[in-house]
């Protein structure tokens, strides 16, 4: 079980890395202002409403709990925590 969990985390980390390295490409492809789900280094669902992204993942047999989903902010946007 621990091995499976580590594998899930590794895949999530890899998709996170891909997202952050390809954020400009995603902006060029009209994902700005949308939540994007990434799996195996490619976008598999997107929408302005995260609920619809999650629904789409579930309909395609994915478990959203382990899928990397992030919002694509416009270039120049700064998030203050």
């Amino acid at each position, binding site marked *: 079980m621990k091995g499976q*969990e*580590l594998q*899930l*985390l*590794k895949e*999530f*980390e890899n998709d*996170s*890395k891909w997202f*952050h390295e390809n954020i400009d490409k995603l902006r060029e492809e009209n994902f700005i202002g949308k*939540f994007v789900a990434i799996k195996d280094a490619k976008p598999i669902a997107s929408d*302005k*409403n*995260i*609920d619809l992204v*999650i629904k789409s993942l579930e309909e395609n047999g994915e478990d*959203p*709990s*382990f*899928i*990397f*989903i*992030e*919002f694509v*902010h416009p270039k*120049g*946007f*700064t*998030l203050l*925590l």
Partner: protein
Amino acid sequence: MKIPLEVYFFAGGMRAMAHFLIKSDDPHMFGSIEAIVDTGSPTTILGAPDLKRMRVSKLNLKNLESRKDPLAYGGGEVKVKTLNQAHLRFGEYFECVIPIQIPVDEIINCTQPTILGVDFLMLNKLSLFFYPNKREAYFESSK
């Protein structure tokens, strides 16, 4: 012991980011999380998008204790509840059980990520080393 972190340019700045698995029995919660390590935040709080990904609803949170004061979060104030037994696992490196705050107000279109705050560092006796120019960051245990 060192726990490696990632350093990315994200949402306008260079950030130290952590990836971990979160588990809880009540409410049931299990999923992968990306969090911003934020030494400006006294508390650890689960992001609204991450709650949604793990399908945690308000109803699931009914047995949790409410925090008396609201937290500043996502540009406003939100009511939160405390999950006292959140099990976090940082790959092969480290695991811990800590209390985390969970927003219970419905936040429309909230994109605020999960934040690992100073409480996480204190409870686990960890120090944060962050070298943004070298794109390197890690926690180090002082236990």
